[in-house]
């Protein structure tokens, strides 16, 4: 009996990130889809999940527009319907599970992040050096594809547990002291 087996073909019925096959998804369509995917691979402490909704706050300028509503519409995260809360006032992000910090907040990023500290809010941003500046997940472009870096220290401080399945995809992982 020969030891040649056939091919292992893995057909994973994954939906494409967004839109019809004709047009490539834009960066923000991809980023919005990533936000949804992050939510599936992060564990929040029980006391942070008290509300009936999973709240995604967008602090500052909203680069997504309707795209993010389309990604989250009709979907649930951890069994809860999703609410997109757009705000310019950081305090209004209190009670959210995830916060996207718009580039408009670049100058006062430390202040914004400090306001969210102490709560278990996954902070995501796409400004330059977001993860270095104390954010948890920073988007960056690599060869025009969307990638991200992860700041484990901040995640740990917020008592958020990110799946190793995601951490291994990060372009860079910032650990203690890094």
């Amino acid at each position: 009996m020969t030891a040649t087996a056939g091919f292992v073909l893995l057909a994973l019925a994954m939906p494409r990130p967004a839109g019809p096959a004709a047009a490539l998804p834009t960066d923000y369509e991809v980023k919005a889809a990533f936000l949804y995917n992050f939510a599936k691979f992060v564990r929040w402490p029980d006391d942070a999940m008290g509300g009936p909704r999973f709240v995604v706050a967008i602090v500052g300028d909203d680069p997504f527009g309707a795209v993010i509503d389309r990604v989250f519409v009709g979907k649930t995260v951890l069994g809860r319907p999703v609410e997109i809360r757009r705000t310019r006032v950081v305090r209004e992000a209190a009670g959210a599970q995830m916060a996207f910090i718009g580039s408009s907040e670049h100058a006062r990023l430390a202040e914004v992040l400090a306001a969210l500290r102490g709560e278990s809010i996954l902070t995501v941003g796409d400004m330059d050096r977001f993860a270095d500046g104390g954010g948890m997940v920073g988007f960056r472009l690599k060869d025009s594809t969307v990638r991200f870096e992860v700041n484990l220290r901040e995640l740990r401080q917020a008592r958020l547990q990110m799946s190793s399945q995601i951490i291994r995809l990060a372009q860079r992982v910032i650990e203690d002291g890094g």
Partner: protein
Amino acid sequence: MRVFEGLTVRRKLTSISVISSMTALVSASLVFLVYDATTFRERLQSRLGTEAQILSFNAVTPLLFNDSEAATATLAGLQAEKAVTAGAIFRAGESRPFAAYPRDASSGAALSPPSADS
């Protein structure tokens, strides 16, 4: 039996015990060989199934995050499995592989997406 003629009783007894042990060993080996040969396919199949399952689990996030580099690295684990000549991950409905692993240059060419019902 003629072969035993002229042997002492002691020798005869030794020969008998050697021959009977040999017979037992040979027949046991034969049974094992036949068993091995008949179950080989089945065991290979189940092993490959397990490996494909592990791979597919590890391919979920690369697919979700559109990271074909990570998916390729995941597939490269197939190197350890000599029985696999090639492997690929396809997005549903796409004909170009999202990630591929050919054991050697020629084996990758034969990959085609699985049919919708598989």
